[in-house]
Structure formats: C-alpha cells, structure tokens
C-alpha cells in the first residue's frame, strides 16, 4: 500500500505514538479524578501535552489549551460560544464544513449575519475584498489556515491584522497545518487556534482542541463532570476546565504528546521541507500529462503537501478507485467537505482527486504515484 491520504489522517506515525497509547491504557487512572499515582500519571501526561501544544502554536501557556475530540468540535465551541443574534461573522470559501456548518446553523437558526470571502477560480483570495466585508457588528473572522482541497496556505497574519483593525476576534482552523507549517499566535495575532491531533501532529483520532490568547473568553460549550468544584452549581469558569467536561481522552492525548515530541525533536522546518519537496516532485511529474488539471498552487502561495487534480471529465471517484484497486494507492476523491471551494474551482460535480503527502513517504512512492497517474491519464484520454 502507498498512503497518500495524509490530509485526512496521517497513517504513518512515529512508533512512539502507539507505544505511548498502549502504555497509557495500561497505567492511567481517571484524569483529574484523584490524587493516587494512576490518576496523577494521567494528569501529568495531559498537562505536559497542553504545554507542548502551547509551545507549538505560540500560545500563552498550558492553561490556555483545552482539549476536544477534533478540530470540528473545537470550532463548534468557538462559533457556538462567540456568535449570537445581531452578530456578523466572516469566513472564506476555502473553509471546511467544520467551519461552514456551524456558521450556517447560526445564520439559519439565530439570524447571525454571515459573509463569505470568495475564492477565485485560480484558487487565490483577495485580501482587499476581505477588508471590505467587515461591518460595525462583525464579531468574528473564522477561516482556515490552508485549503484542505488545494493545500494552498493563506496569509493568516495579514487576515488577522485586517480583522483586528475592525475590532473582530480571529479564529483559525489549523487542521491542515499544525505540525507542518509554523504557527505563532502571538506574532500572527491569532485569538483562537483550533487544531486536530490525528493529522500532522501524528496523534490518534479523537484528539484535538483549542489554544486561546490570554484575552479571549469563550462560554462553556458543554458542562458536567470537571473532577473539581463538585458542589458548585455551575461548571468551572477557569481555563482549561471551562471548555472541557467529562473525562478527557487521556490515552489519546498521551499519543498526541508523543507525536508532538517527535515534531519537537525532528523540527517543523525539516518536516515541512521534506513534505513540500515530495509534493512538488509529484506535482511536476503529473503536470502536463494528457487531460490532467491541477488545482491551486499559484504565484507565491505556500503549500501544505496537498496536490489536487482531475483527469479530463472523469469522475474523481473512478480515478480514486482505480488508484486503489490497481495500484494500491490511497487517495481521497469527492468533495472533501469543502463545498464552496469546489464551487469556486468549478468541480462540484466531478469532485477532485486529492493526493496528500507526509514526510514519511518515500521517493520511490512518489515515482510510483506519478507512473499510476500517467497510466490512468492515457487510459482515460479523450474521456
């Protein structure tokens, strides 16, 4: 098997991730639920991981990192907590449904106003047009750091500066970039960063969360068991427990911590360079093949290891299936939970075949991927 679906989940993890999860399952008590050795071991692992996340994202400290089950849950916490009737929000057409659907629900059920910055057919966004969308009641600008379809990385510092000039809060979906593209909340002016653990942080599925700037306060999304303040009628109002309820996925967080340790040891710049090198080699290898259309990657836009393509008018699902069945190559076809991006690129019907690379991929795998696309491009030629 050749795995090129790392934008969905990284399958090739540092071995210490699985080892950490296995060890945690055999040794952790309830996190935040006692003072005995087994509970404290879980507590310390979770606390250590909070600190690692804060360092990776340039956040204030461990106390400003709240865990959730993934970026989608984290973004629901942000959008549901911050937006109410009378507010206006802005996002971009590059957003994943993890951003769009909570916003659409707010729009449809509570009357929150919403503006969406278009993405041009060449996949670029217009920063001046973003500036023009703000209104006096704009409360939140929430956008993705990188398109999960094209891999294009947007200038979040520039977007944040524009939003702050209008007095709006800034929340960024880093599902495709955390661990792969440097993020610095303080330097880039980000109020909230939502991350997921199972992609480029190499953690297990079911891990993710939020990192907040010190000045940001988000109402609790869910309330219940906190392990502390048991006689209080209401959920704790201090971070990080404020945004967490119920026993955390400490076993998964132990794996996430191991993934973060790997990134710290290897260096994000080295991981990024190798990933981008592999993606660029693949892109060059398939560029110009008969009928192959590539999406994104124009001008000075940074990339995050994704190459999206189509072959003629062939259904992306058919191409993906052929790659899987005949070449053992795993890619993602279809809409990728990014409906507005497909509208922008004109691929709503066909979808797109997304190749997403990891620095664990090899040169040989890239060559075999190029050969497979070349074969299919010729087989489907004229379709």
């Amino acid at each position: 098997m050749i795995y090129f679906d790392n934008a969905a989940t990284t399958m090739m993890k540092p071995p210490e991730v699985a080892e950490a999860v296995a060890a945690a399952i055999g040794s952790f008590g309830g996190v935040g639920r006692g003072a005995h050795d087994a509970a404290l071991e879980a507590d310390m692992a979770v606390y250590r991981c909070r600190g690692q996340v804060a360092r990776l994202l340039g956040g204030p400290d461990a106390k400003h990192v709240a865990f959730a089950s993934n970026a989608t849950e984290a973004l629901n916490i942000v959008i549901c907590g911050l937006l109410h009737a009378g507010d206006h929000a802005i996002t971009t057409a590059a957003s994943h449904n993890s951003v769009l659907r909570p916003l659409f629900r707010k729009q449809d059920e509570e009357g929150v106003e919403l503006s969406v910055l278009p993405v041009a057919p060449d996949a670029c966004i217009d920063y001046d047009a973003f500036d023009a969308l703000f209104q006096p009641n704009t409360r939140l600008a929430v956008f993705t750091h990188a398109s999960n379809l094209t891999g294009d990385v947007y200038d979040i510092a520039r977007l944040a500066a524009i939003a702050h000039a209008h007095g709006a809060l800034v929340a960024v979906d880093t599902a495709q970039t955390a661990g792969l593209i440097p993020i610095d909340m303080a330097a880039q002016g980000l109020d909230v960063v939502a991350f997921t653990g199972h992609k480029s942080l190499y953690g297990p599925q079911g891990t993710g969360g939020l990192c907040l700037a010190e000045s940001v306060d988000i109402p609790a999304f869910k309330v219940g068991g906190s392990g502390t303040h048991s006689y209080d009628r209401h959920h704790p109002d201090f971070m990080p427990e404020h945004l967490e309820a119920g026993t955390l996925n400490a076993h998964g967080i132990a794996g996430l911590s191991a993934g973060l340790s790997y990134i710290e040891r290897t260096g994000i710049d080295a991981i990024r360079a190798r990933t981008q090198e592999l993606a660029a080699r693949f892109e060059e290898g398939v560029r110009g093949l008969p009928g192959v259309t590539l999406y994104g990657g124009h001008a000075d836009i940074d990339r995050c290891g994704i190459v999206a393509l189509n072959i003629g008018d062939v259904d992306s699902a058919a191409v993906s299936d052929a790659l899987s069945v005949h070449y053992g190559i795993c890619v993602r076809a279809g809409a990728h939970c990014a409906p507005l991006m497909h509208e922008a690129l004109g691929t709503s019907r066909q979808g797109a075949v997304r190749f997403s690379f990891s620095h664990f991929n090899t040169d040989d795998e890239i060559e075999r991927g190029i050969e497979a696309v070349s074969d299919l491009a010729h087989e489907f030629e004229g379709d």
Partner: protein
Amino acid sequence: MVENKREKSLKTVVTFSTMADAMQMESEAAEKGFPGRIIPVPSEISAGCGLAWRVDERERQALLNAIRIFTLPYEGIFEIEMY
C-alpha cells in the same frame, strides 16, 4: 491487630484553583527538587481544584521559598493537623 496507630501532625497544605496549577507544582517539584507531594484536598479546606500539595511542618519554609522563587500559582496556604 494494628500495632502502629496513625497519629495526626501539623502539615502545610497548598491548594490550587486549577488542575493545571497543581500539575505545574508537581512538574516543577520533580524538576527542581523541592519538597512535598500531591494529596486530595482535605475536606476542611474549601478549595478550588481537588488536588493539594502537602509538606511536613519542617519542610514548610523550603516550600514557601520555592513558591516565591519560581512564582508558582496557588490558591491558599493552610496549616492543618492531619494524618
């Protein structure tokens, strides 16, 4: 038959507002070697998080010094007769 009966003695107990503060104390103590250990908060203290830090009375000053030097966050400091 229990031969050694437990007896109470004066302890210094530090409480925390949040679990993260308690974990910071645990982490810094392990790294810097100051005294004490995590305990469940004694019921006579109305404390924030469910964990506290305990030292024997003779280690009180060393702990207070560490809290000051390393600016460790805490909620309250108590003197308690406890087992």
